[in-house]
């Protein structure tokens, strides 16, 4: 029997109810998905069964994980944050500006660090050879960008609105439109890869990947806000998305960076 959207909907609802009950019974709020989240079928064989071993970083400030790889001006080019200018012609689609701040858990900006993005084109097709979705490639759009945060932790990308696309988790599975983000902090422990979504996407309830974040408030933090002040007149629509990196860091290393 092919797995239907209805089957997945029931599983998503059950996972959500289980989480809500755990929290009501006093368990801590979970900001991240559990790696073991069955509605996303690819997770079944790819999550550890053993609990992770906890390392208390306060016991050893010398841990290499408390430092972070460094990136600099030579790791990006000037137009790497403008995905509409990487080819000879203009990509097709609705131009957007996506901007926000990269922060740590204390709300302090993470300066001069690498932010990488990748996304589907406006038709919902990735420029990836294994992508099977029968939607047109755009010769003027690759969908890859990178930038360094500035002294206030700001990043900014110009791109086109990605399209939603089908995938094979179950019959008639569709991913809400999203942009993949990869970030570094001041410590390797803060490493984050995630996806940014757009406001009011009707696909949210059906998608086991966004629903893997079972906490309602946490899930909202993956959704950008439309920001008219970021819209560029006669050019692009603006979205604001701040990112907060989890994970402990050695605050004393950051001084002077």
């Amino acid at each position, binding site marked *: 029997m092919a797995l239907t959207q209805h089957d997945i909907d029931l599983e998503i609802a059950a996972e959500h109810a289980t989480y809500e009950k755990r929290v009501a019974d006093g368990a801590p709020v979970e*900001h*991240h*998905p*559990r*790696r073991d989240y069955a509605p*996303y079928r*690819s*997770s*079944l*064989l*790819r*999550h*550890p*069964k*053993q609990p*992770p*071993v*906890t*390392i208390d*970083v306060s016991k*050893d400030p*010398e841990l*290499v*994980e408390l*430092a972070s*790889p*460094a*990136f600099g001006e*030579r*790791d*990006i*080019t000037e137009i*790497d944050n403008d995905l509409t200018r990487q080819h000879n012609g203009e990509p097709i689609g609705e131009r957007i500006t996506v901007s926000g701040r990269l*922060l740590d858990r*204390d*709300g302090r900006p993470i300066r001069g660090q690498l932010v*990488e993005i*990748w996304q589907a084109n406006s038709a919902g097709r990735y420029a*990836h050879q*294994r992508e099977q979705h029968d939607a047109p490639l755009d010769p003027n759009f*690759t*969908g890859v960008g990178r930038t360094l945060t500035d002294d206030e932790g700001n990043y900014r990308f110009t791109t086109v609105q990605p399209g939603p696309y089908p995938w094979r988790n179950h019959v008639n599975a569709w991913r809400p439109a999203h942009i*993949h983000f990869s970030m570094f902090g001041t410590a390797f422990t803060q*490493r984050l890869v*995630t*996806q940014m979504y757009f406001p009011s996407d009707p696909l949210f309830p059906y998608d086991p*990947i*966004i629903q*893997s974040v079972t906490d309602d408030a946490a*899930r*909202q*933090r*993956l*959704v*950008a806000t439309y920001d008219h002040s970021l819209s560029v007149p006669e050019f692009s629509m603006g979205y604001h*998305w*701040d*990112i907060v990196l*989890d994970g*402990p860091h050695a605050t004393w290393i950051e001084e002077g960076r």
Partner: protein
Amino acid sequence: MTKIDTSRPESVLPTPSHTVGPFYGYALPFPGGGDIAPVGHPDTITVQGYVYDGEGKPLPDAFVELWGPDPEGNVSTTDGSIRRDPAGGGYLGRNGVEFTGWGRIQTDANGHWYARTLRPGARGRSAPYLSACVFARGLLVHLFTRIYLPGDKAALAADPLLSGLDAARRDTLIAQDDGKGTYRFDIRLQGEGETVFLEFQ
């Protein structure tokens, strides 16, 4: 809800993690990602292995990031791991001279990965190790582990992490010496011989 008001600490909450999905391959990996050691450096080691799922099948759609100190135990603050070409828009690659300590390596179609880096020196109370972070389609939150090198039994026995693990689990964190500076380190995401993964607090 995604404008964070930093004057209200209670509103500064983590952005949730998500899987990298299947299509990062044209975005994140870069040429020479695993060639971390400066060219011809005498302390170069090769680390290689496979990433396996719960059925023992290798993952062709995972990548590993390595992060380690130099042989003296110093952490690099040098950028330039993914130098770009401002003229053509492609990659220049590492310059082969400087050590950045960091690399990103995509598994190949067989699920195999390799890196050439510098033998890590000891830091603090730990035995020498490389930090490794695993990303894959199907993995909703990346996984941290460590690649310890065999050899110095006293240092391994005194390591605060290793000394707290039972023998079978401990061995999943210690690479196998294949001679000539080459080490094998397989990553098993689930099941028999499951690699020890770490969380930091």
